[in-house]
C-alpha cells in the first residue's frame, strides 16, 4: 500500500509544496517548496539498520560471557549501545535523532518479554530491532529514528 501512495501523489517533496499565492493554483513559478518530510533516500531505513545492528552485536558479543559479579557487564552493554549509535550516525540520513537501547541478560532459561510503543509521526519515524544470543548470554538491541522537523 505504500507503493500506491507514491504513484498517486508523486514524490513526497512535491506533495508538501506550498504555494505563495495561497489560492491552490499549481503555478510552478510561484510555489515555494517547504520540505517537512525527508526525501526517501535520506530516510531511516529499518532493514539497513537491522543488518547493521546484527553486525555490531555479533562483533561485540561473539566471545563474551556474562560475568556474575563486577562492572564488566554494565561496561559491555554501554559499549554495544555506543557502538551501534556510532555506526548509525555514519548512515546517510539527515535530521534524524537516534535512540538506541541495548538489553543484555544471562542465558540461563529465565523467561523474558520485551515490548515497545511509540507516539510519533509514522510517516517519518521508524524503528529497527534485532536479537542475538550465544551460549552465555542473550542480547536485544532496538534503535529508534525520530525526525526533527
Amino acid at each position, binding site marked *: 500500500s505504500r507503493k500506491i501512495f507514491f504513484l498517486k501523489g508523486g514524490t513526497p517533496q512535491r506533495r508538501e509544496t506550498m504555494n505563495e499565492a495561497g489560492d491552490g493554483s499549481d503555478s510552478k513559478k510561484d510555489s515555494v517548496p517547504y520540505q517537512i518530510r525527508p526525501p526517501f533516500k535520506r530516510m531511516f531505513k529499518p532493514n539497513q539498520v537491522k543488518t547493521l545492528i546484527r553486525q555490531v552485536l555479533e562483533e561485540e558479543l561473539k566471545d563474551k560471557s556474562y560475568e556474575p559479579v563486577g562492572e564488566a557487564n554494565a561496561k559491555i552493554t554501554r559499549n554495544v549501545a555506543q557502538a551501534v549509535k556510532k555506526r548509525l550516525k555514519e548512515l546517510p540520513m539527515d535530521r534524524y535523532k537516534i535512540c538506541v537501547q541495548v538489553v543484555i541478560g544471562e542465558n540461563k532459561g529465565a523467561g523474558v518479554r520485551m515490548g*515497545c510503543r*511509540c507516539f510519533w509521526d509514522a510517516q517519518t519515524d521508524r524503528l529497527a530491532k534485532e536479537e542475538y544470543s550465544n551460549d552465555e548470554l542473550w542480547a536485544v538491541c532496538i534503535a529508534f529514528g525520530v525526525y526533527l522537523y
Partner: protein
Amino acid sequence: GLSEFPTQFHRMAEEDYSWNKQRVHDSVMEILMAEFKKDDKDIPYDENKVPTWTNSILEKTMKKLDKFGEEKALKFAATCTIMQRTGDGIHSATSCFWDKANDEVVVVKYPKTSKFTKMVAIVTIFAASMYVEQPDD
C-alpha cells in the same frame, strides 16, 4: 513502607502535566506497581500472561505521556522489559544522538528496592522534541 506507595502524595500533583523527569518516573512507577500487585501481594510470573502485562503497561504509559508531551511538543518511544526473577542478571544501556537540552531518557526500574519480587521490569522512555525552538524576531 510508605516509600513504596507514593500514590497519596502524587494525587495532589496530578493536575500539573508539564514535563518533569521525576514526575514522569513516579507516574510510570505507579503503573508498574499497580500491574504487579494483587491484594497487596506480588503476583507470580506467568509465561502466558507476560504479553498482556507488557501491552497493558505500555498502553497506560502512553496515555500518561500523551498528557506530559503537550506543552513541550514531544515524541515518545517506550520499551518495557519484563523478566522472571531467577537470580539471573540483566543489564540495559541506552545511547542517544539528539539535543541534550530538550530531550530526555527516563528509565524506571521495578522493584524500587532490592525487595524480592517474582519478576523484574524496566521501562525506558525516550522523549525527543519535534522541532528546534526558534526565537521570535
